[in-house]
């Protein structure tokens, strides 16, 4: 019984300590990311970008002399953990703003909870329901800083039509909110463009052998297959569909961005993908090289999303101070911020970016080739 009692006491003490530390001093930013769960490759990148930006800011003297302190919260890709971490951030750690995850389910879970507070969450969930209530008005604290699913899919669809594809197959994971949110707008766009979607195939997280599932798509003799899935599944599907003799185009979302080409293990010809950044721009190449030499990390698009948002926050702190409610109001008014991921303007009616550009690429061998810029609308 003594052991148990001392355990309980320890628990109480440790919890208490965390509140004591949250006093004046540096400006706290929460970074609510999946660090050890299934989407941790994304979360770690966002955190890396935020950290990189904050280190730059602090090295240059901080915000009006105050340093920025990034507090990392691991959601483990689990919504319960995420809500716990969120509550900890706003109630006991006193953060001025939170950089949210690029994961829809977490955004959806935190959104209703966030209504009770004033801390803005600057996230990257592309499902518009993370930002908008069922009645179409935005959650006051939820913001997205990359184009929404319907915008990205519209770009990919337009691109596909423009390149003369007329018959499509679609493969998506029905157990993954991200995958689900991308497929419907794509099908809408290409059908509106006069093309035919001959075969739609769904799978679940338990599927690893896709050959049987993919057979109908091959039988339908399609010209291109749309595959909006997380990188790992994407690699399996792409490998298996190629091994079955499919020679046509594979149109993929952000998941086919590098390092996909190195993980894929074979030439990636005929794979098209969308990206937030143009990796051939000098500014981006410079930063990728700097990050690589300093930390050994290969910065990908999510890194730059995190980097931009941290810098946006810095500007806001300088302008309106660190009171979360003021920061929130300022985030809503972000206009034409020139970041590495494009010119960011937040639409106050949707809390999502307006007219943000994205770039279509294709692989030749393992080298990504920039094809065309599109503005999301």
């Amino acid at each position: 019984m003594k052991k148990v009692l001392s355990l309980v006491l320890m628990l109480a003490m440790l919890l208490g300590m965390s509140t004591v530390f949250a006093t004046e001093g540096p400006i706290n930013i929460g970074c609510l990311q999946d660090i050890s769960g299934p989407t941790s490759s994304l979360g770690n990148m966002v955190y890396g970008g935020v950290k990189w930006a904050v280190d730059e800011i602090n090295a240059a003297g901080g915000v009006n002399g105050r340093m920025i302190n990034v507090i990392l919260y691991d959601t483990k890709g689990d919504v319960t953990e995420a809500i716990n971490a969120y509550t900890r951030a706003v109630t006991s750690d006193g953060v001025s703003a939170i950089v949210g995850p690029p994961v829809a389910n977490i955004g959806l879970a935190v959104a209703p909870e966030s209504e009770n507070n004033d801390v803005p969450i600057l996230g990257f969930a592309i499902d518009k329901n993370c930002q908008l209530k069922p009645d179409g008005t935005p959650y006051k604290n939820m913001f997205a800083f990359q184009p929404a699913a319907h915008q990205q899919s519209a770009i990919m669809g337009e691109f596909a039509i423009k390149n003369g594809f007329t018959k499509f197959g679609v493969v998506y994971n029905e157990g993954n909110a991200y995958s689900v949110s991308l497929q419907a707008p794509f099908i809408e766009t290409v059908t509106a463009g006069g093309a035919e979607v001959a075969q739609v195939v769904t799978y679940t997280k338990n599927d690893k052998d896709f050959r049987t599932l993919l057979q109908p798509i091959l039988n339908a003799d399609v010209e291109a297959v749309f595959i909006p899935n997380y990188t790992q599944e994407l690699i399996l599907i792409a490998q298996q569909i190629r091994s079955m003799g499919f020679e046509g185009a594979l149109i993929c979302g952000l998941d086919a961005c590098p390092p996909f080409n190195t993980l894929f293990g074979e030439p990636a010809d005929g794979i098209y993908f969308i990206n937030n950044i143009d990796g051939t721009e000098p500014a981006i190449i410079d930063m990728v090289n700097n990050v690589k030499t300093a930390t050994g990390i290969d910065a990908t698009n999510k890194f730059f999303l995190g980097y931009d948002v941290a810098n946006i926050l810095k500007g806001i702190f300088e302008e309106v101070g660190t009171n979360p409610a003021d920061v929130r109001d300022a985030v809503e008014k972000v206009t034409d911020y020139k970041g590495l991921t494009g010119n960011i303007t937040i639409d106050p009616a949707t809390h999502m970016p307006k007219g943000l550009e994205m770039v279509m690429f294709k692989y030749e061998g393992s080298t990504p080739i920039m094809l065309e810029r599109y503005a999301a609308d």
Partner: protein
Amino acid sequence: MQILQYLINGIALGSVYALIATGFSLIFNVLKFSNFSHGALMTLSAFSGYFIAAGNGWGLVPTILVSVLTGAAVSLFGEFVAFRRILTHNTSPVYFFVSSITLGTLYEGIVVLKVGANFYNYPRFFGKPYRIAGLFVARSDIIIFCISAAALLLLAYMIRKTKTGRALRSVSFDRDTASLMGINVTRTIQFAFIVSGALAGLAGVFLGINYTLYPTMGSIVVKGFIASVIGGLGSLPGAIIGAMLLGILETTLISIIGSGYAPVFTFVIMLVFLLVRPRGIAGSNIQEKA
């Protein structure tokens, strides 16, 4: 033709399931419990194969060897930390279950510590698939099928013909009597764990080749569990038959109703199966011993 292709896919899937199911069954056979750490053990050995061998540019054979050895060694370690005391103190067998799940968490935690949640891809060991009369047969599938078959035949020989195999069978039948007959029960159980771990290592490499490496890949052990129930819990030939049936059944179900409802149908089929033939295809009726 189409049906033939599905059949090939099913057998390819089934041969990996068979490795999992046998490793799983072996432990069930001896200790009468479902070893849920088996999946995480596959993950751990497959990853060590990646980091020690394949990642350094070594070929398929060294990768398999490293994984099999790791599997065997870790399995032996697992027997010592998680199951030995339960066994010697004769505590209720239900503890095996909890112990094995926790052991699985431990293995997975170690993998996560090293790789995070990232996934890895073995280098391509095999070239383009064969195309025979309009059918696609992946080279990896053929080789995996052959190696699995060889490993399982070897196991069968060991269990049926060797002295250790006989000891294993007698321990699985009745531990106490076997001990009275002068069989070293602890050694025999250790042996079972080593073999089961080696099979886990082999299965892990094959899973990695076919489906990439990731920390939660062990959850596929559930398929081995289902296969060994279909075949009859604890029966090794049953486990192999069950695994093949499950592989073919799954591909057939997917081709007919798609992937979404497949788990629902698998569940219903399993339920019906348990109602009609609860002891499985080959199993004898194992009763809870008093």
